[in-house]
């Protein structure tokens, strides 16, 4: 049995994740959710004093905004669109007939105005742009959302629906790159407190196709995105549990985000893969939270 499925089996057996019959789509047990809630409180303890404006969007976004984002240029294979039945009585009958005989009943489903959110910060940029120029000193936002990526896998660290907590900073180049650096330092400190071995490396995003190889090379060459890697299912191939992304002025230009003086805003975001961090904790310290090292339990606020 490979290590990925054995970790997944142990998580199922312990009731931490709940099998749905679809790879990468899992229910969460209470203890698993509690770890995520506690880790989020730890994030709050580090970032709460920065004065970020909190916003929570549902896991679907405006399709027009999704189209503007350019996500399909880079990751068409990961996107998920929401389709619905939009027909009349006759269409309904033929749909039921299709289902009855087991043929493809989804062919007549029509795209709705909603696309599943690929990253927690995607609904933010058009929202902020609508407000007009950023206030003096830029903007700082706190987001969390379930996100969808179509990549079925038996690796519990590669789920199709998972939560991402993010801080997004908008301002001058210096402002947002300082923000990114401060969260790289904080991330290392936080993971040390919960007893996880980490490394920071340039990111390796799964851009699509040959065009994507060039985008990936550019991202690496320009040091635009770093990841904090933690062993989850494999020590040799650790999992990205945080990412630190500097967009230069790309999102500012795309969405019309401007500073007080009218210049285009630079943006950066830091993201926590909440399920991945919880999985790293269970993988490292075991399935029984009561048996986790005392220092780790204290850092997460577990009683005595």
């Amino acid at each position, binding site marked *: 049995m490979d290590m990925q499925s054995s970790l997944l089996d142990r998580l199922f057996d312990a009731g931490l994740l709940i099998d749905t019959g679809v790879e990468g789509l899992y229910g969460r047990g209470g203890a698993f959710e509690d770890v995520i809630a506690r880790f989020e409180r730890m994030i709050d303890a580090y970032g709460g004093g920065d004065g970020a404006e909190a916003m929570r969007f549902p896991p679907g976004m405006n399709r027009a905004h999704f189209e503007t984002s350019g996500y399909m240029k880079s990751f068409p294979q990961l996107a998920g669109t929401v389709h619905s039945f939009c027909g009349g009585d006759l269409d309904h009958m033929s749909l039921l007939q299709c289902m009855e005989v087991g043929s493809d009943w989804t062919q007549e489903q029509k795209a709705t105005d909603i696309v599943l959110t690929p990253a927690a910060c995607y609904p933010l940029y058009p929202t902020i742009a609508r407000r007009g120029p950023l206030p003096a000193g830029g903007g700082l936002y706190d987001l969390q959302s379930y996100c969808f990526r179509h990549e079925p896998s038996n690796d519990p660290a590669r789920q199709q629906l998972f939560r991402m907590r993010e801080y997004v900073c908008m301002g001058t180049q210096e402002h947002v790159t300082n923000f990114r650096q401060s969260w790289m330092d904080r991330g290392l400190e936080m993971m040390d407190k919960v007893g996880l071995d980490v490394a920071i490396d340039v990111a390796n995003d799964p851009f699509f196709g*040959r065009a994507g190889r060039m985008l990936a090379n550019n991202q690496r060459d320009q040091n635009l995105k770093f990841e904090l890697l933690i062993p989850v299912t494999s020590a040799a191939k650790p999992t990205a549990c945080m990412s630190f992304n500097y967009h230069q002025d790309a999102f500012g230009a795309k969405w019309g985000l401007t500073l007080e003086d009218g210049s285009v805003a630079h943006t950066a975001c830091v993201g926590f893969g909440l399920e991945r961090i919880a999985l790293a904790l269970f993988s490292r310290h075991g399935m029984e939270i009561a048996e986790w090292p005392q220092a780790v339990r204290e850092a997460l606020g577990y009683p005595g």
Partner: protein
Amino acid sequence: MQQTIRDILTKHGGLAMPVDQIADTADLYAAGLSSFASVQVMLAVEEAFDVEFPDNLLNRKSFQNIAAITDAVGSLVGDREAVA
């Protein structure tokens, strides 16, 4: 070859100024070539010259200016002819 490359840049580069006003060694990114436009240029160049950029040439530097693109295509065409 260079005219074909200039035509491709006109069509796919999304540049802020006409390509005939851009010197061979002028920075195309400074002239408005976006990361994604550079990818479209790469794919169009591949099709026009029937070449394939290897991984080590799939980067910003290969598309920094018209001279760099010409060099890259020249070397790939040369390789192909050497193989043939």
